[in-house]
C-alpha cells in the first residue's frame, strides 16, 4: 500500500484538493481561450480544413496574421455600433434597473406582511427563460395587435401607438425595458441580502439622534450597501454587455442594425457568414473590453468604503 511521509503528504495535499477544479478550468476555460486566440489569426470557416492546427501546412494556409483584427478595427463599424447600443442598455440597467431593485429591496426589508410573496414575485423574471420572456414581450409590443398599443388606444393615446420593436426610434429602448424587467430581480435579492446585514441598532441610534429617513438612508444604508452596490453594478455591466438571447427572441438585431449587440455580431460572423477566425477576433476584442470593466471594478472594490 502506498504510504506517504507526513511531510510529503502535507505538501501534496493542497494541490490534490485544487486539482479537479484546475483540470476543469484548464479544459473548459484555459484551453478554449488559447484555441480561440490562435483561431483569431486564421481565415477559417470552421469546417475546412478539418483541423487547421493539424500540420504546419494547414495552419500556414489559413494563417492571416492580424488581418482579422485590422478588419475589426478598420472595416466593421456595425461591430462598434453594437458596442454603443449594448452600452446604452447597460446605462439604463445601471440606473433604472438597479434603482428599482434597491427601492423594492428596501420596501421588502421593512418586514411588510407577505414579504415572502414579494420576494418570490420579484425574483420570478430572472429565473424565466430569456427566449420565453422575449416572446411574451414580442407579443406585448406587437404593432398590429399588441396589448401595449391596445392599452394606449383605450387610454386615448392612440396617436402614440407604433410597432415598438420595429421602429428605429424605440426598438433599442423597448428591448432595454424588457432587459430591465427581467434583470432587476438579481439586484433586488443582492440588495435585500445586503440590507439584512445592517444592524438595526445603527438605525435606532440615528433615530435617537434625530436623523430623518433621508439622513439614515444617506449616512447608514448607502455606505454600508456600497460593496454590494459595486458587485451588483459590475454584474449588471457584464450581464448586459453580453445580452443575446433576448435580442434574438425579439428583434434579431433589427430593424436594420438598430438592436445589434456585440454577441449578435459575433454570432453572425461565426454562423451567419461562416467566418470563424473573424468571429474569434471579435470575441477577443470584446473579452478585452469586458476585462477592462472587471479591472475597474476590482479597483473600486479595493477602495475603503
Amino acid at each position: 500500500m502506498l504510504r506517504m511521509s507526513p511531510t510529503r503528504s502535507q505538501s501534496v495535499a493542497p494541490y490534490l484538493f485544487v486539482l479537479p477544479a484546475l483540470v476543469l478550468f484548464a479544459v473548459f476555460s484555459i484551453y478554449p481561450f488559447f484555441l480561440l486566440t490562435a483561431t483569431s489569426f486564421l481565415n477559417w470557416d470552421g469546417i475546412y480544413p478539418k483541423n487547421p492546427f493539424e500540420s504546419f501546412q494547414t495552419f500556414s494556409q489559413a494563417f492571416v496574421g492580424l488581418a482579422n483584427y485590422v478588419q475589426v478595427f478598420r472595416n466593421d463599424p456595425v461591430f462598434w455600433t453594437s458596442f454603443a447600443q449594448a452600452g446604452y442598455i447597460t446605462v439604463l440597467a445601471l440606473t433604472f434597473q438597479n434603482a428599482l431593485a434597491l427601492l423594492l429591496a428596501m420596501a421588502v426589508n421593512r418586514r411588510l406582511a407577505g414579504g415572502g410573496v414579494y420576494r418570490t414575485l420579484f425574483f420570478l423574471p430572472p429565473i424565466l427563460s430569456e427566449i420565453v420572456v422575449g416572446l411574451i414581450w414580442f407579443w406585448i409590443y406587437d404593432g398590429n395587435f399588441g396589448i401595449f398599443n391596445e392599452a394606449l388606444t383605450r387610454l386615448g393615446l392612440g396617436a402614440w401607438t407604433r410597432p415598438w420593436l420595429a421602429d428605429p426610434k424605440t426598438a433599442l429602448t423597448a428591448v432595454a425595458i424588457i432587459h430591465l424587467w427581467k434583470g432587476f430581480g438579481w439586484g433586488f435579492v443582492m440588495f435585500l441580502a445586503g440590507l439584512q446585514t445592517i444592524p438595526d441598532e445603527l438605525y435606532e441610534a440615528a433615530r435617537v439622534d434625530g436623523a430623518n429617513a433621508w439622513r439614515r438612508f444617506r449616512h447608514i444604508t448607502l455606505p454600508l450597501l456600497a460593496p454590494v452596490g459595486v458587485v451588483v453594478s459590475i454584474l449588471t455591466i457584464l450581464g448586459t454587455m453580453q445580452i443575446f438571447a433576448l435580442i434574438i427572441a425579439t428583434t434579431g438585431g433589427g430593424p436594420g442594425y438598430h438592436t445589434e449587440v456585440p454577441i449578435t455580431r459575433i454570432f453572425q460572423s461565426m454562423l451567419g457568414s461562416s467566418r470563424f477566425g473573424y468571429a474569434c477576433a471579435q470575441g477577443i476584442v470584446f473579452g478585452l473590453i469586458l476585462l477592462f470593466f472587471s479591472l475597474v471594478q476590482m479597483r473600486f472594490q479595493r477602495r475603503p468604503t
Partner: protein
Amino acid sequence: MPRGSRLKVVGSRVKPLPRALSLQPRASLVVVGASLLLAISIAGCGRGAERGPGPLRVWHWMTDRIEAFDELAKRYERETGAAVRFELYAPSEVYVQKVRAAAQTDGLPDVYGVLGESRDFASFINAGHVLPLDEAMNRENQAWRVLFFPNALAVNAFRDGNPYRVPPGVYGVPIDVMNVQLFYNKTLLAKLGLDPAAPPSAWQAFLDVGKLAKERGLIGFVSGWAELWLIDCFAMDYAIHQMGMRKVEATYRGKVSYRNPDWGRVLSLFAQLRESGLPAEGIVTMVNKQAEQLFANERAVFAFNGTWGVNVYQSMNPGLDYGVMMLPRLSERPMVTWGGAGSSFVVNATSHRTAEALAFLAWLTAEPQQRYLLEATQNIPANRVAAAALPTPLAAFADDMDSTVHPRLFDAQEHSTVIEALTKGIQSILIGEATPEQVAAHVDDVKRQALQQ
C-alpha cells in the same frame, strides 16, 4: 508549528488544520483517481458518435415532419429489419450549430443535412464529411438519378471547375422541392371588392391593395422579414425579373455595381412598398411564424411564403380559402421564383454504415415513401413520379417549378456579408430611415471590401 499538522488559511493568516480534516494517503488516491476519471471522460466527449451499434441515425431540422419521419422509420424497420432513428434539432439555426460542432469533433451521424450556401456545402465535402453519390446514383442505368427533378439534384451537385475545387458530382439526396410565392386570401380580396379569381398581377395593382386593406382594418402583406433570407428571396426574384440572371451573377462577380440603375429600381420597390402601406406594421422584425399566424387567422391579405405554408395553414386554419401566385410583375419580362430545391440529406463519408445509409435514402426517395410524405406533410416530393398528382395549392407551386432560381445554381455566389448589408439595408428602406440610393452605396462599399478580402 507542530510537526505533522496541516495548514488552513484564514484571511492572510495560516493556522494548523485539525488532524481529523487532514488528507490521508487513501483519500489522496481517491482524489487523483477521480481527477483522472474526469479527464478521461472529458477527453472522450463527442467522438465517434456514429460508430456504435444501434439504429442508423438521421439528423434533421424539419419540425413539421417529425411524425411522418418516425412513421417512415417504423415502416422501414418492418420491411427490412433495419432500425432508423430520426433526431430533430430545431430551429434551423440550432441545427446548423449542432452539425458544425459535430463536424469539428467527428461526431456526425450516418445521415444529415447541410444547411447554408454553396461554400458551406463545399467545405463539408472538402473536409471529407460527405460521401459522393455518383456511383450509387448511376447504378442500374441511373435508376436513382432519374427519379428526381433536375434542379433538385443540381443544387446538391458541383460542376467541373467550380470555385470551391470540389470534385464534380452529386453529393446530396433531395427529399422534397419548394419555392417561395405569394399566397392571397380569396375571402379578403372579395371583401376589398377585388376579384379573388384574378388577384393583382401587376406591381401597381398590388400596391393599391395596401390602401384598401387599411380602410377595412386589414393588413395588406405579411412575411417573416426579420429572417433576412426571405427578404433576399423577394429582392432576388425582382432583381432577376428586372435585369436578368446574367447581370445578377455579374454583380456577384463584382463586374456590375450595386449602384447600377437596375439595382436602384429593385431597391426602390421597397420604398414603394413602404409608401403604399401594404406591409404589416413591424414587418422588419416579424418572424415567419408570426406572419403565418396572421395570414392563417385571416388578418392579412397577402403572405410571401414557401411551399411549406400549405401544410402550416392547413394545420392552423383548415377552412382558409387561399390561392398562390407568382410575385406581381414590373414589366412583361418573365417573373421567377426562388426555390427549385428543398430539403436534402447527405451521407456521412466517415460513417461505417454508408451502404446502409444509401439503402435507406434510396428507400426514402422511392415513390411510395415520397407519396406518404406528400400526404402527411404537404410538401412537393423530389421524386417526379410521386409529384405527378398534387392537391390544388401544391399544384400551383409545382406548375412554377420551371421558373425557379436557386443561388446554389448560380455560377457565382454572393458573399454573405454583402447579402447581410443588402437585406439589412432593405429593412432600413422599409422603416424609412434610408433611401434606396444610400443603401445601394453602402452595399457597394461592403461588396468592395469583400472583393478585397
